[in-house]
């Protein structure tokens, strides 16, 4: 496997989506190629940084209003006629 192939398979490698033969080839390449190792590891770091970000929530006033509206819609919904 060459660097071009490794990069092409990178995303599937991260997701454990490659078959056994390709996974073995990728691992072999990664063991000896510094650049590809860096690309793989920094891609995974990027994903971790992304997951750590502050998650945005519904602003409180909107959230409260939505809750009240939906709750009454939910509780007042009549049972389906048999």
């Amino acid at each position, binding site marked *: 496997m060459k660097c071009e192939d490794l990069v092409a398979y990178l995303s599937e490698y*991260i997701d454990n*989506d490659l078959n056994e033969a390709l996974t073995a080839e990728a691992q072999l390449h990664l063991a000896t190629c510094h650049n590809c190792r860096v690309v793989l590891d920094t891609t995974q770091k*990027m994903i971790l940084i992304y997951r750590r970000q502050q998650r945005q929530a*519904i602003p409180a006033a909107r959230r409260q209003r939505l809750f009240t509206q939906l709750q009454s819609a939910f509780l007042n919904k009549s049972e389906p006629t048999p």
Partner: protein
Amino acid sequence: MSVTASSSARQSVGNMAEADLLTALKQRSPQAFSALFDTWSDKLFRLATGILEDDAEAEGVVQETFLKFFEKLEQFEPRAKVSTWLYRVAYNASIDKIRKRRPAQMWLGNDDGDGAEFFPGNLADWRYAPEAWLSSLEAQRELTRAISALPEKQRLVFRLRELDGFSTAETAEILGISVGSVKVRLHRARLLLRETLADYFSERMKREQLL
């Protein structure tokens, strides 16, 4: 550690809880409603704002999605996946609103044949950058900026896979595209975002050495 393993674990735990929740919802339990709202409202809102970039419209999408869900509730089978269903409905409602705004624009199709394959250019080794750099607000901002600069179709796939923890197949189902398209878009997004951070961290390494 594999990045995927943790997200699929999260999903399967969600599945088990979902069946119980569904039963309680069908009995119109107020607690079940609160649990449903707490679990999904922020997530659906984030998905909608990610597409619409408008809080009021996103609120409308969340409302519409839950109301549709209440209507469908009786027909939901115990094994049905509530999360995927809610996301798909919220996604479609968001896209409908976008289409009304920009009727001429072609929205997310299955076409991924655009542009040559991207190859990593910046090979700076920032794997051992200090933890403080990785968790810095500055790094977060760089990444956020790069994500908003991504083509819309890549951005959504990246979000659903990496933040919301959906599998490739679930993401395909929510967006109504093929599994192959999900993979291609995710691959491109990951490489582009990695490049942005590589540029940022290599600059920062240079800067700090000068001090």
